[in-house]
C-alpha cells in the first residue's frame, strides 16, 4: 500500500513545511510564556483572601475550561476586527486567544503546586520575619514551580499539539502547511502521514525528557 508513496512531494516542499513549523513553535512559545505568567497571576488571585478577586479568577478559569479551544479561537479571530483592532491581524488574535486559554489551565496547575507547599513552610518563612508577599515570592513559589515543572511541561506538549487547531482560521502553521501542499499536489496520504510522524517524534522525545526529569526530581 506504500508502493506509490511519493517522497519527492515531501522533500520538494521542505521550505513550506519549515515555515509552518516556525509558526507552530512561535505559537507554542508565546502561549507557554504568556500562559504561565498570566496563569500565575490568576492562581494568586484564586488563592487570595480578597473574595471578589478569587471569584473573578475562578469564573475566568471555569469559563475557559468549559469552552472548546476552537470556539475561543473563533471568538478572538472574529471579534478583534469588530472591536476595532484589525491591526492585530489573524496571527495576533490567535496568539491572544491561545495565551488567555492556556492561562486558565496553567492557573489550575500552579494553584495545585502552591497548595502542595505545607503550612509549616509558610510559617517558617513568616517566622524569620518575611512578609506574606516575600514568603510567597522566596519560599512558596520557588518550591512550587520546582514541583510543577513536569506537569507544566506535559501541558506544554498538549499545547504544542493544540496549536494545530489554528487550521480553522487558515493560519499557516505546520499542519496547515502540510494540508495546503496535500490539497495542491493531491498527495494527502504522504503529507498527513509525514506530519503525523513529525508530531509524534517531537512529542515523544519531549515526553521522554519530561519523564526523565520527573525521575530526577522524585527524590
Amino acid at each position, binding site marked *: 500500500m506504500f508502493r506509490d508513496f511519493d517522497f519527492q512531494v515531501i522533500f520538494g516542499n521542505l521550505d513550506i513545511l519549515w515555515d509552518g513549523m516556525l509558526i507552530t513553535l512561535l505559537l507554542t512559545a508565546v502561549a507557554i510564556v504568556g500562559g504561565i505568567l498570566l496563569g500565575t497571576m490568576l492562581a494568586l488571585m484564586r488563592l487570595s483572601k480578597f473574595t471578589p478577586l478569587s471569584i473573578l479568577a475562578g469564573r475566568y478559569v471555569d*469559563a475557559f475550561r468549559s469552552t472548546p479551544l476552537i470556539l475561543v479561537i473563533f471568538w478572538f479571530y472574529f471579534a478583534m476586527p469588530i472591536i476595532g483592532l484589525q491591526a492585530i491581524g489573524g496571527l495576533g488574535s490567535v496568539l491572544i486567544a491561545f495565551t488567555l486559554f492556556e492561562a486558565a489551565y496553567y492557573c489550575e496547575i500552579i494553584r495545585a503546586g502552591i497548595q502542595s507547599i505545607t503550612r509549616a513552610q509558610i510559617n517558617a518563612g513568616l517566622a524569620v520575619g518575611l512578609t506574606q508577599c516575600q514568603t510567597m515570592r522566596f519560599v512558596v513559589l520557588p518550591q512550587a514551580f520546582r514541583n510543577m515543572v513536569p506537569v507544566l511541561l506535559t501541558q506544554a506538549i498538549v499545547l504544542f499539539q493544540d496549536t*494545530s487547531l489554528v487550521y480553522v482560521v487558515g493560519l499557516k502553521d505546520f499542519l496547515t502547511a502540510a494540508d495546503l501542499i496535500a490539497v495542491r499536489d493531491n498527495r*494527502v496520504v504522504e503529507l498527513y502521514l509525514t506530519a503525523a510522524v513529525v508530531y509524534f517524534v517531537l512529542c515523544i522525545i519531549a515526553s521522554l525528557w519530561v519523564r526523565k526529569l520527573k525521575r530526577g526530581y522524585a527524590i
Partner: protein
Amino acid sequence: MAMKYNWDWSILLCRSPEADPTGAVEPGTPGSGATEFGGGMGQTFDTGAECAQPYFDWIVSGLSWTVIVACAAWVITFSLGSVIGVSRTVENKTVRAIATAYVEMFRNVPLLLQMFIWFFVVPELLPEDAGRWLKRELPLPEYWTAIVCLGMYHASRTAEQVRAGIESIPRGQTHAGLAMGLTRTQVYRHVLLPVSYRIIIPPLTSDFMGIFKNSSVALTIGVMELTAQSRQIAEYTFNIFEVFTAATVLYMMVTLIVVTIMRFVEAKVRIPGTIALGGD
C-alpha cells in the same frame, strides 16, 4: 465597541418550520477548510432583525450533534480505554507493549491530524472494497469518522487513568484475591476494577468534558456540531457576539450538567467509611 455593530439577540430565536439545518451549507469539502473560512466573511446578509435562516434550529441541531457525537465517542473511549488500561498492568510483556504503543501513538499526534488521517488517509490504505464502502456507501461518513476518531483518541487518555487507578491499589489486595483462589481475571473483575473506577471518577469526568469540547474538532471534516453551526451563523449574520455567547453558554451548561451527574454518581458509589475524593 465603538464600531458600528448592530446588537440583535433576536437572531438566536429565528425559527422555521421546514428548516433543514444541516443542508443550508455544504459540509466542508476535503482539506479546503483553511481557505474557506476567510472567504465566508465576504458574504453580505442583512444584520437586521429579520430571519434569513432558522438560526435557532441550527443551534439546536448543532447542540444535538455535539451531544450525540460526544456520547457515542465516550462509549468507545470507556470500553477501549478500560481494556488498554488493564492491558498496561498485566504481566504478559507483549500485551503490555501493544497497549503502551497504542497510548503513545494516540497521545502524541494532534487530534485534528488524527481526524484527517481517519477521514482521508485510512480509506486509501484499506483494501479497495472496504475503502470504497467507507467513502461512498457508508451514510454520514464524517459523523462515524468523528465518533471513532474521538473515541480512540480519548481512549489513550482514559487508559492512563485506568492504569493509574489500578496501580494505586496496594499489591496486598491482589494477593488477598489470589490467596482465596480467585483467578487473575476474577481479581480484576471483582477487586481491582470496582475500586479503581471509583478512585478515577474525577479525572474521568474531566476526560468526558474533554470529549465534549474536542468534538468541535470534528467540524474540520464537516460535522455540523455546535461550534460549526455558530460559526456559520456568525458568517451569515455578523452578530458574532450574540451567537458565540450562546454557544459558549451552551458548552458551559453541558459542563455543568456533566459535573453534576458525575458528582451524583460519585456520591452514589462512594464506599462507606472512606472520604469523598472529588468533593471540596
